[in-house]
C-alpha cells in the first residue's frame, strides 16, 4: 500500500515520535467529523475611509449569511443556530444580528447569538457551533464574525475600571492599550524594528501578489454598499469586492521611514501593525453524515481547538502557547501542519511566536495577513477559515492551523483539514 505511509511509520518507530501517524489519523474521514460545507467573507476595507465606512455591521453580516445560503444551496430552515463573534457592538450586537439573519433569508426557526472573546470571537463562534454539533445539541450551524470598526470603534470599548480592579496589579494590566504593551513586549523580547518591518513588508507583498493572481476571489463575496464621498458629500452605491488596505510597493525600507506610534524610541508603527478595518465572515458547519445526506460539498473539516491564558501584558504571546496545545489535542506535530494562519495583530508578536515555535516563514500566512488587509476584530477568526481552506485546496495541501492573540492575555488556535 502507500510507501510514504510505511516510511513515516518506520520513521516514527525509530525516532520515538509520539505524534507519528497523527496526521494520518486526522486525514481519515469519519461520519461524525464536523465539516465545513461553505465559508466566505466580505472584502476588508479601511476603517473610516474604505468601501464599508458607512455600512452597519449587521448589513455586512446579512451579506455573508446570504452568500452562505447561495453558495451551499442549503435550506435555511435546517440551520438551527448562528453564532456571531463581534467585539465592539453595543449590547453585544445581539438584536441587530438576529435581525440580520431574518433579512438574509433565515426563518424565525434559526436561533442567533453573539459572543465576544475579543480578537478570537470569530473563531470562538465557529468552535462553539462545532461543539454544539458534536454534542448533539444541533445538527447544522453557522459560526461567523463581524466588525464595523468605522462605526463602532472608539473610547467606549472599555468602561472605567473600579477601584477594586485598579488595586490589583495584574488585573489593572488588562486595560493597558495593545500598542503600548506590544511596544514593551517587543523591547523586552528583543524583536528588532528591522525584523518587524521586513515581516510586515512581506505581508504586504504576499497580499499584493495574491490579489493580482485572484487568490482571494473564492473567499470574498462582493457586496453592494452605500458610500459617501468625503469630498463632494454625495452618497453613491458601490460594489466592494477587494481588500482596499492592500498597498503595492511597500518594502522593509519604506516602512523603516515611518515614525514609531507609541514611543519615541519604539519599533511599532502603523505599517507593521494590523489595520483598522470593516468586514464580516461566516462558516457553515455540520456533521459529515449530515453533509452527505444533504448532498453538500465538503470543503474541509474542523479537527479541534485550544484556548489558553498568558500574562495580560504579554498578550501577544497567545499563539505561542495556544498553537502547541491545539496540535497536541489533534495528536500532530508542528511539521504536520502545511499552512499556519497566525493573525498579524502586530508584526512583533506574530514574528516572535513563529520564531519561538520554529515555524518556517513560508508556512505562515501565504496570502498575507492583518497587516496588509486588516483586522476587523470579531471577524478575523472566521475570516481565517476561508483564507486557509481555499489556499490549502489551491495548493493541494491538507492540514492547516489558525490562531490569534487575544487582548487581556489569551491565545486561541484551531486545526483544520482541507478536503
Amino acid at each position: 500500500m502507500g510507501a510514504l505511509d510505511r516510511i513515516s511509520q518506520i520513521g516514527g518507530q525509530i525516532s520515538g515520535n509520539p505524534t507519528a501517524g497523527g496526521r494520518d489519523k486526522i486525514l481519515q474521514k469519519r461520519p461524525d467529523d464536523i465539516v465545513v460545507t461553505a465559508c466566505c467573507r466580505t472584502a476588508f476595507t479601511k476603517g473610516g475611509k474604505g468601501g464599508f465606512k458607512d455600512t452597519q455591521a449587521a448589513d455586512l453580516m446579512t451579506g455573508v449569511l446570504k452568500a452562505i445560503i447561495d453558495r451551499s444551496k442549503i435550506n435555511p430552515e435546517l440551520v438551527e443556530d448562528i453564532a456571531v463573534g463581534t467585539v465592539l457592538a453595543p449590547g453585544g450586537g445581539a438584536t441587530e444580528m438576529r435581525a440580520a439573519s431574518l433579512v438574509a433569508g433565515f426563518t424565525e426557526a434559526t436561533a442567533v447569538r453573539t459572543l465576544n472573546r475579543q480578537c478570537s470571537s470569530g473563531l470562538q463562534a465557529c468552535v462553539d457551533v462545532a461543539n454544539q454539533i458534536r454534542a448533539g445539541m444541533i445538527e447544522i450551524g453557522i459560526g461567523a464574525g463581524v466588525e464595523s470598526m468605522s462605526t463602532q470603534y472608539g473610547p467606549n470599548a472599555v468602561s472605567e475600571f473600579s477601584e477594586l480592579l485598579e488595586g490589583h496589579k495584574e488585573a489593572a494590566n488588562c486595560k493597558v492599550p495593545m500598542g503600548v504593551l506590544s511596544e514593551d513586549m517587543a523591547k523586552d523580547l528583543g524583536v528588532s524594528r528591522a525584523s518587524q518591518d521586513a515581516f510586515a513588508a512581506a505581508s504586504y507583498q504576499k497580499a499584493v501578489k495574491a490579489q493580482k493572481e485572484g487568490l482571494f476571489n473564492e473567499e470574498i463575496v462582493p457586496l453592494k454598499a452605500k458610500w459617501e464621498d468625503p469630498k463632494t458629500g454625495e452618497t453613491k452605491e458601490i460594489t466592494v469586492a477587494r481588500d482596499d488596505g492592500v498597498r503595492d510597493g511597500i518594502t522593509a525600507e519604506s516602512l523603516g521611514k515611518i515614525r514609531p506610534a507609541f514611543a519615541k524610541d519604539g519599533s511599532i508603527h502603523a505599517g507593521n501593525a494590523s489595520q483598522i478595518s470593516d468586514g464580516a465572515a461566516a462558516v457553515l458547519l455540520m456533521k459529515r453524515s449530515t453533509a452527505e445526506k444533504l448532498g453538500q460539498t465538503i470543503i474541509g473539516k474542523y479537527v479541534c481547538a485550544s484556548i489558553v491564558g498568558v500574562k495580560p501584558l504579554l498578550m501577544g504571546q497567545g499563539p505561542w502557547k495556544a498553537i502547541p496545545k491545539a496540535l497536541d489535542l489533534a495528536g500532530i506535530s508542528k511539521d504536520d501542519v502545511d499552512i499556519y494562519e497566525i493573525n498579524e495583530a502586530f508584526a512583533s508578536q506574530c514574528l516572535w511566536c513563529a520564531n519561538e515555535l520554529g515555524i518556517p516563514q513560508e508556512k505562515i500566512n501565504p496570502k498575507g495577513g492583518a497587516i496588509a488587509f486588516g483586522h476587523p476584530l470579531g471577524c478575523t477568526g472566521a475570516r481565517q477559515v476561508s483564507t486557509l481552506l481555499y489556499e490549502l485546496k489551491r495548493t493541494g495541501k491538507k492540514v492547516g492551523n489558525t490562531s490569534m492573540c487575544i487582548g487581556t492575555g489569551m491565545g486561541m488556535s484551531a486545526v483544520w483539514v482541507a478536503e
Partner: protein
Amino acid sequence: MASMLEFRTQGFNPYAVKYSPYYDSRIAVASSANFGIVGNGRLFALGLSAQGIQVEKTFDTNDALYDLAWSEINENQLVVACGDGSIKLFDLGVNDFPVMNFHEHKRETFAVCWNPVTKDSFVSSSWDGTVKIWSPTRNQSITTLPIGNCTYSTSFCPSNPALISAASTDSHLRIYDLRTPPSAKYHLVSSIPVHAPQTLPGAPAQPASAPAEILTQDWNKYRDTVIATGGVDRVIRTFDIRNPAGGALSVMPGHDYAVRKLAWSPHASDVLISASYDMTVRLWSDGSMQPAMNPNGGPSVGRQLGVMNRHTEFATGVDWCLFGMGGWVASVGWDERVLLWDSNMLMAGR
C-alpha cells in the same frame, strides 16, 4: 562468539523468523524487498544440514511480508502476513502459489499466530485496526475484533485457546476472551494501559511514561497470565493480565532504539530475548526467579543477560528453537542475514 550459522536473504530484508514446531532443522523467514517499503515479498523455507543452511523452498509475493506462522496441524504448511492486507497459506509441497488466500484486512497485515492448543485456527492483526480469526479451510474470517488503531502484534495464549492478546499503537495491550458472550465489547475482557502510572496503595505514585506504540508482545510459556511487551519507548515490560490496572510487574530498559520483536524462552520461565532497531539482540531475565527486590511494590527491574551485536542493520525478528538442549535462537535483520546461534554463549562470560 564462535559457532554461528549464517544465511543471506540476497535482495530481501527479513522481517520475521520462525522455527518449525515439527522439525529442529526447519526454519522459515518472511522477507521484503526494499525494507518492506515498496516491492515484493519472499518467504524462505530453510533447512539445516551438515553443509550449513540450505534453501528448501522460496515463495514470492506481490507485496512485502511482515510475519509468518507455521501451521500446527500440517508440518508442511505456514501462513504469511502480507503488505497488501492478505494472508497467504503456503504448502512446501506445492510450488510457487499459495494454497489458500485470506484477504479481508484493508491495510498491511502485520502479524499472524497459529492457535497452539486447538490447532484449528489462526489469528491476524493489521494496520486497519482489526484482529481477525481464521480457519485454514475457510476464505472468510470467523470473527473480527475491532481495535481501532494499527495493531502490530497479536497472539493466542499458549495454554488457553480462547484467549487472544493484541498490542497496538495506542499504547494499550488488549486481552480478548472468546468464551465471553458476544456483545458490544467484542469479547474484550481487559485493556492494559502499558504506559500508565503505577497506582499502588501506600506507595508513592510512579510517574507515567509517555504513551508510545507497542510493536511486539508475547505470552510467557510457563506463567500463563504473564505477557511481555516492547515498542517505541525502548523498554520491555511484563504484565499480569489478572491485574490490568496494576502496572508493570517488571521493566527491562536497555535497548537504544525501539524494540521490534520479543519472544519468551520455551525452556525457562524468566528468560526472554528481544530484537531492536538498535541492531542488537538482547537476552533478559525478568527477575521473577529472584525474591522481590522492591518491597514497596512497583515494578522490579529485570536483568540483561547478554547482547548479541553481530547484526549490522535493524534486528527485526527473533525466535527460539524448541528442540535440543535449549538456548538456540534464530535472529534476522535488515542486513539480509539470518543468524542461528546459541544464546547460552552470551552468558559464558558471566
